[in-house]
C-alpha cells in the first residue's frame, strides 16, 4: 500500500527557506507570487492491506519522527499506485 505524508509548518511559524524561495520566484519575474511556504513530502510503501490500520500506524510515525508537532502539521494520504499529479 502506498501512502504519502505531507509535513508543513504551522501558521505563524517563520519559514526562512520559504521566504527565500518566494523572493527568488519574484526575482524570476513571476508577478503575483504572494507567499511561499516550504514543506516536506514522504512517500511510504507499507505492507499493510487495511487502510484504517495503516493510517493509524502512519499517525504514530508522524508523531514520533516525521513531524515535530511543536512547529509542524501533518496530513496523511493513503492509496494510489504512485499516481503523480505533475506533468511528465
Amino acid at each position, binding site marked *: 500500500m502506498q501512502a504519502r505524508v505531507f509535513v508543513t509548518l504551522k501558521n505563524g*511559524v*517563520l*519559514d*526562512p*527557506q520559504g*521566504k*527565500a524561495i518566494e523572493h527568488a520566484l519574484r526575482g524570476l519575474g513571476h508577478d503575483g507570487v504572494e507567499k511561499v511556504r516550504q514543506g516536506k513530502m514522504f512517500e511510504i510503501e507499507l505492507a499493510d492491506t487495511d487502510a484504517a490500520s495503516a493510517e493509524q500506524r502512519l499517525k504514530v510515525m508522524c508523531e514520533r*519522527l*516525521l513531524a*515535530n508537532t*511543536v*512547529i509542524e502539521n501533518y496530513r496523511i494520504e493513503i492509496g494510489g499506485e504512485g499516481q503523480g499529479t505533475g506533468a511528465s
Partner: protein
Amino acid sequence: MKSAVIVFPGSNCDRDAAVALHQASGKPPAMVWHGNSELPDLDLVVLPGGFSYGDYLRVGAIAALSPIMAAVIRHAERGGAVFAICNGFQMACEAGLLPGVLMNNAAGKYVCRHVAMRVEDTLSPFTAGYQSDQRISIPVAHHDGNYFADEATLDRLEGEGLVAFRYDNDNPNGSRRDIAGILSANRRVLGMMPHPERAADPDLGGTDGAAMFRSLVETLA
C-alpha cells in the same frame, strides 16, 4: 566528577568538550558511542555539538532516537545532569528532555561568531559559578539555533527562572525572547546554542565558558 561525552555520527565538538572536562576535573570523560544502549555510572552526560546524521529530517531528530538516548533519558530522570550544547540542545529538545525546538536561523544563514550573553540563572550546577546578570561572550556556530516554543511554554520557563542565558542585544538567530539556553524543571539539564567548550582556554581566545565546567566539577563532584 564522573562524566561521559556521547559521540554521534557527525559530532564535531565531542573532543573539545572532552578537553574542557578534563581540564576542569583533572580526569578525562568516557567517550560513549551513540550505538551503545547502556551508560556507566555517571554524574554528567554531555551531548556535544556537530551535525549528527547530517541534520537529515530535522536537526537532532534522528540522533534523539539513537540507542544511547534511552539511557540518557533514564539518567536525566534519575536526576543526573545533562549538558546539551548546540546540536546536543537540538537533540535534547527532540528527545523531550527540554521543551520547544530549534528552527532555522531567522536570517536563513549559518552564523559563526562570538555573541554577547547575559547569565539569568545562577542556581543550576552549570551556572553556579557566575554572577546573576553577568555579561559573557561565547561563540556560536549554527544554522538552526532559533529557539521556538509556544507562548505558554515561554511564560512557564520565564516564570520558573529556567532561562539560563539570553542574548544580550545580540540575538544571532531570531530565537524567541532572545533565549540562548534553557534548563529543565529540576535544573539538571541545560541546553544552549553557544559553545562554552570553545571558550574555556585562553589559547582559544576566551575563557568565559570555563566557569560552567568548573561549577559542574564543584557541584557534582
